[in-house]
């Protein structure tokens, strides 16, 4: 076994570039509003006082 076989030429002396994954986060605003059509379904429409 030659010295070259013990230490693959592809690795020794070769520069290495490590690709780092992206650390991410996601920002959002919770939107749990009732659908607009639900307003007034309880018969409240027209009950507003001046």
């Amino acid at each position: 076994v030659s010295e070259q076989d013990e230490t693959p030429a592809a690795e020794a002396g070769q520069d290495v570039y490590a690709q780092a994954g992206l650390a991410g986060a996601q920002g959002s605003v919770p939107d749990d509003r009732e659908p607009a059509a639900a307003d007034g379904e309880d018969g409240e429409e027209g009950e507003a006082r001046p």
Partner: protein
Amino acid sequence: MTWATAGSAIFQQAMLNPIAGRCWTTAAPTTYSSLSADAINVSLFNNTTAPDKTAAVASTGYNTGQWVTANEVTGAGIWAAGGRPLASKTFAIDATSSSICFGSANLAGAGSGTLTNAYGCLVYDNTITAGTVAAQGLCFNYFGGPQTVTGGTFTIIWTVVTATSTVFNITV
């Protein structure tokens, strides 16, 4: 949690403070100034490390929790314990991805040498000296597997978001 499972992530506690710390009256970590002014270091870690973005803040600092020096990967003359500081940092909106990107130049070792089986890195604020934890971690970044260099240079290539080399981003 393994590197492969955890991937890359921002620590929840880092998002709370200091990244989004200005949103509230909570005091910033001791001696923290900003990501631009502070020394933001990058240390390498092996596969014994079990990254967890939900870790308590006390376990996110350099040489705490999973990020102890026993798990750190170093290379004589190229990547010392405690890591290397980011350079040419940026903080800006990327319109294409609709995200706020914390960017940096790719990070090369000090020279040619040997280091073995680095699976990922811890990015931490080395200016923070106290509070709940010193040298608080911001995020961790997975390399996709073990990285070894023998008699060569070692460089971390950050993910490019549009045209910016980005360490972490927050999509809005």
